[in-house]
């Protein structure tokens, strides 16, 4: 019995590692400057966004979560820090970016997303 419990525990640990760190969720591609990212319930929706390289693009954020954690949006590699108003769209203009991955998150890194520039 204990062997089974221990194996289940180890399987659970493996699952955590795979689900949170190894799994690559699908990405959303930005089209026509139209993408709206909803900030709500601890997440950015969508959180993984594919963008074209070397051209300026804009992202629209709509914060629906009143918690102050979601208030600030940071894109450290681009030196962007913006306050997101509640229940209002905010457009963030991004400069042309070279290929690579750029994380965006709230101040405490609880809300997390990633821009993949290709």
């Amino acid at each position, binding site marked *: 019995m204990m062997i089974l419990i221990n194996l289940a*525990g180890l399987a659970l640990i493996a699952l955590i590692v795979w689900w949170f760190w190894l799994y690559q969720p699908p990405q959303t591609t930005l089209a026509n400057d139209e993408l709206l990212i909803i900030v709500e319930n601890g997440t950015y929706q969508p959180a993984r966004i594919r963008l074209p390289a070397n051209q300026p693009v804009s992202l629209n954020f709509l914060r629906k979560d009143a918690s102050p954690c979601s208030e600030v949006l940071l894109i450290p590699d681009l030196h962007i820090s913006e306050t997101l108003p509640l229940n209002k769209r905010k457009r963030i203009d991004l400069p042309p970016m070279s290929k690579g991955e750029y994380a965006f998150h709230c101040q405490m890194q609880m809300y997390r997303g990633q821009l993949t520039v290709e």
Partner: protein
Amino acid sequence: MATETTDSAASTRSPDKHLPRQELLVEGASCASCVKKIETALQHVPGVTKAEMNLAQRTVSIEGSADAGALIQAVEQAGYGAKVQQAESESDALAEKEQADWAYYKRLMREMTIALGLGIPLMIYSLVVGEMTVTTTSERIVWLIVGLLTLAVMVFSGRHFYVGAWQSFKNHSANMDTLIALGTGTAWIYSMVVVLAPDVMPGMARHVYFEATAMIIGLINLGLALELKARGKTSEAVKRLIGLQPKTARIIRDGYETDIPISQVELHDLVRVRPGEKVPVDGEVTDGHTSIDESMLTGEPMPVEKGEGDEVVAGTINKTGSIVFKATRVGKDTALAQIIDMVKRAQNSKPPIGRLADVISAYFVPIIMIIAIVSALAWLNFGPEPVVAFAMVSATTVLIIACPCALGLATPMSVMVGVGKAAEAGVLIRNGEALQTSSRITAMILDKTGTITLGSPKVTDIVTAAAMDETRTLQLAASLESGSEHPLAQAIVESANERGIDLLAMSQFNAIAGHGVEAIVDGQQLLFGNEKLMQERSITLGSFIDKAQHLAADAKTPMYLAVNGTLAGIIAVADPIKEDSIAAIKRLQRSGIRVVMLTGDNRATAKAVAEKAGITEFFAEVLPEDKSKKVQELQMLGEVVGMTGDGINDAPALAIADVGFAIGTGTDVAIESADITLMRGSLHGLADAIAISKATLRNIKQNLLGAFFYNVAGVPFAAGVLYPFFGLLLSPVIAGAAMAFSSLTVVTNANRLRLFKAQEH
């Protein structure tokens, strides 16, 4: 760069072309063809010269004199909805944010009351009767009711944790909600299993933990509410800046004075400000004379005299006279709006010291989940009976006590307060990195002119050769220097003007950088500059070298005038040291910083000025293009170098320094030119900037240390590492309280920075 879309109403006008412009918010447009249709419909409205739609923002910008009603009608006829919109003012946005925060605070307090309303009686009961066990059928019924009440608490007061956890889980991410949801959920499910199917649990493990679930939800909501309150205080500096902006302006149009909202003030409008009123937008005085209190922006306590042609800045207070000024910057272009924007950006940016915490935060929650599983397995394998209960309690406690928020908040909260505090002292910090580096500065290079000195030199001595008189010497030098923009040249021209000397025509002007100038005046070849220039051109200086040295030793800058290859005289100029430079330099030196003066002046003058200012090290005769080399020289010696200059001539040196400080005079600041802008002309601003950055970094370190220690010590304790030695195992309720208050402690410690006061002695 970012823009906001709002739903409020009014119209604005183009600031640059003076063509009326209106913004409409369009509803129902979703494709590129809608854009074309709406734009065409609007362009057909009489009076419209241009209509451009932004599909992403759902806004359309219309130029021309058309009536808003006609525009809305045109959009509606095209099959869409529209309303007028206006750029939101900072104070409106702030008021809205405060309202939203207040509503959120009330919600959290309500949820907390409900949760603790159930949790506290249950906890008291558990303290009175000891362990809450389920043995009889009647006990099962009572506990089932309590379990359902706890479920109601979870739904009403803890819903946001569970929804957040689930949403994050679906997104392959985990956050604080995940930990709270897992911890409280585990305790509740375990208890319900005990109530509904007690037989699956060993007898000793038939305990219920409903009080833990309710208490944890209540305490964490309380912690969040208190944290929200404390956070409000961290942004007080920005609130104060926003509050400086008046809501209306009195403008003069067509000979009439009317009060209008400041959002409607246009470029070139004439604005009247009466004594005691705030200046509404930036502008240039066209009529009247007054003194203006700029202390709220610059930290400079003395009011500044303003007359025709002088610049006035939004947010400052008119003290004595009534003035009329022409608006030169309105809306988001005013210095105040830019300062607010810069402070807000800097407050949200992170210094490098926060990066480790960020890396840890990114992996933190899944790691805690793994530790909780390992802890449960350890109890199940090696723990005493009842192992199931111990395993569940330890896993829940580990999940609940871990607080990624304290780690995440440690840096940003202190930066928020520190940057705000600096802004109050007239110090604008560009970002977190500049803040951190300035706390580590070991050497500070101060440009002499305009930084240590007033930057407004005056002619003090004229020594002439036998064939010349003072007036003629000054006339020739001033005529020659009228082509130069150098501050010393301006001093000479001003001196000639004061004495009523007419300037002569000048031709073939040539500036020899860092040395002097030459030109032909009145048919004579003139050469005016330093000793090096004279030696290069083989001018015999004779006994004048001694005279020049004597002047230089008195902190004056002597310049030689040669006419047709023969020395005609010396004109000495002195630039007085600012009143408080000496005290401020002492402050820097006391804080262990090596202060070095840099100047293009000759060695003797530089030495005399440095001595007067209390500086032992100086670089003299430095050409403008070599200033950055001097910065590098100190960097090569391992110093972390700060460079302070006016931000115009020193731009390359400011850029190459570890931290560049641009020292402004009044509100005419070169905000873009440096890492840190000192709005006050005084060097005390520099000492304040360094003192604040040191205090902020100290505060960040305290926060990080506290958050690290809390998690590093708290998690093993919760897992039960002390149990084998001391029989100690933490209760999940205590863990919940500790977690809730750990973030609050961080925010409260950051708020202590608000009490920081720089000492000007």
